[in-house]
């Protein structure tokens, strides 16, 4: 994958394949997008915003202890 513009020019952001075709960014992301760096992350987030994407895996992956602590703190308050 390649990109065709600077990573902070969000509106023009396009990611191209090695063959020069526009890459369809998946809303669930990919390692390839992370490896592209800033431009990949921005494109991924843009796609998620457009699709109003909710990560189905977040509760599996996120550190449970942190959320439990936060919940306990919120209850105390």
């Amino acid at each position, binding site marked *: 994958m390649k990109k065709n513009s600077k990573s902070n020019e969000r509106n023009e952001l396009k990611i191209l394949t090695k063959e020069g075709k526009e890459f369809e960014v998946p809303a669930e992301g990919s*390692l390839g997008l992370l490896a592209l760096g*800033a431009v990949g992350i921005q494109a991924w987030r843009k796609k998620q915003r457009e699709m109003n994407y909710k990560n189905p895996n977040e509760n*599996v992956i996120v*550190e449970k202890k942190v959320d439990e602590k936060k919940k306990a703190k919120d209850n105390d308050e």
Partner: protein
Amino acid sequence: MSKKLAKKVLLIGWDAADWKVIHPLIDSGKMPALEKLINTGVMGNLATLDPPLSPMLWTSIATGKTADKHGILGFTQPDPEGKQIRPVLSTSRKVKAIWNILMQEGYKTNVVGWWPSHPAEPVNGVYVSNFYHKLDKIPLHAPRKFAQDSIHPKRIEKMLMSLRVHPGDLTYAHLLPFVPDAASVDQDKDRRLNSVAKIIAEAATVHAAATWIMENEEWDFMAVYYDAIDHFSHGFMNFHPPRMKGIHKKMFERYKGVTNAGYMFHDMMLERLIELAGPDTTIILISDHGFHSDHLRPRGIPKEPAGPAVQHRPYGIICMNGPHIQRDELIFGSTLLDITPTILTLFGLPVARDMDGKPLIQAFDEPIKLDTIKSWEEVAGECGMHPSDKRQDPWAEQDALDQLIALGYIEPPDENAQKAIDRTVNESKFYLARVFMHSRKMKDALPILEELYENFPEEQRYALRLAQCYVELNRTADAKKIVDETVKKAKKRTPSIDLLYGRLFLAEGNMERAIESLKNAEQANSRLPGLYQHLGQTYLRMERWKDAEQAFIKAISIDRDNSLSHYGIGLAYLRQDKYLEAADEILTAVGLTYFFPSAHYYLGETLVHLGYYDRAAEAFEVCVAQSPGIKKAHLWLVDLYKKHLNKPEKAEEHERFIVEKIKSEEKKHRKRKK
């Protein structure tokens, strides 16, 4: 000023990356970016330092100096109030890093994620500290706070903060390449998936900052550090094939691909960095140490501070590519102290004589005239270091605080905090002693170890290191006393203690007892590091050449990258008149550890036997360059230059050196002895 070889330099750090893992991946086409970098550049081993602890090592890489000079001594330090411990900080570094020197010389420098690098230093480019990418302690949907002073300059703080990736942002699309059956992992019982997500997210965050800076900011030098390979390795190398004894088959099947996937992810990120750097940039990819991935993986981790370092292998990686760098060549004898001198040389700047490394000139495609300077510390001007009032010596501060507590001026920290502080302070002293021992400054190490042993006689690590130090100083009676006391306290002889007894008896010249102790150690643990080397050395002293050869061959079968073993087997061959084999082994030894005066000496002797007089002279010249006081080498050079190479002026030079320097030193030594 010498010739400038590089326009821009990109220094990439992959903590714990190891050729032993990389080679099979490259061979199967799974790391194409690195493969290309190697094929069009140079590669080699990068010898680490002792202790192999990353914050100390990465600071040595960035300064060209050992830790006794740069001041970073471990993972933690006391806070300025002396009430708790905290991670080591950039403010504790006492000397200039390469980015400070380059800034002073007018080059624009960027630093991302270096360890330690918090708080961010006010350099003339962008500086992102090693606190920037830590997000896992923040709940997923909470505001993503960040550590103050983690980014310089402030104008890009908001931009870079928006690029951070939280582990909870990741989906199975990110995790499946690492753990193909991720969906079946019971997260209540097994939290390893969370650990994989955290490591990926942090690496992606560092990479996002680095790539954004490369795209949007000017730079001449940029250093980027990724810690993920080290984290993948500590977490998952025990699941790496082949399956280790004691690893459950189901767990092995589930996690066996994590480490390789981590390397492949880094290769993908490397491809992007290479693309953004462009062909005019010299790229240096390094690791601070390797990581045991084969039969040398330890079966357990010692329950002691920095215990996991037992998994580290003494050779990291180096790969260089770019203008004026040789193509498709191997380089030998590099250490991580050589990186800063090499970068200075690439920019045509002098190397400081108070640095402990050397420029890797063998990597360059043309001869270079090297300039030196006494010290960069004395060069005045804005260099982007923290102002002196912000810099601190946490160890000196701790002493001052202890004094104030003793005087009753301030309250002591609570008991648990005090224990943690004491442990940190003692460990830092222990690490400093190890740094001195590794630099062969035994006399500097000794008082520190004696103090530690006096205060903590039950701590076997301190006792055994003190005994080793005594052995090195030829104080075998003192060493024996310490080992005897340790055995008495432990009420048993461990293989390590038998090994140490072996060394002691060898030093005393009691060969039979040395062999007996070493054989005891062999019976208890035949894979004990250093065992067969010492056995081989003992046989060499006994002139039992064949037994020595066999012992060193066993040592090599355990670890083929051990330079001392190759050197030992070379000596055994030399004494058996097997000159070609001897030359081969000693060349391997100096290839692994270039700073090895005695190996260069015996290489010279072997080459004389083979009739290669010019190459023998080269070997003896390296020997005396590394250790000028070796008289035998000068005598060989006199002989070679006079009788075989027809260079009487060179012979005279060495004759003069023997008369003026060595003989006067010998005279002084005899006087002192009297």
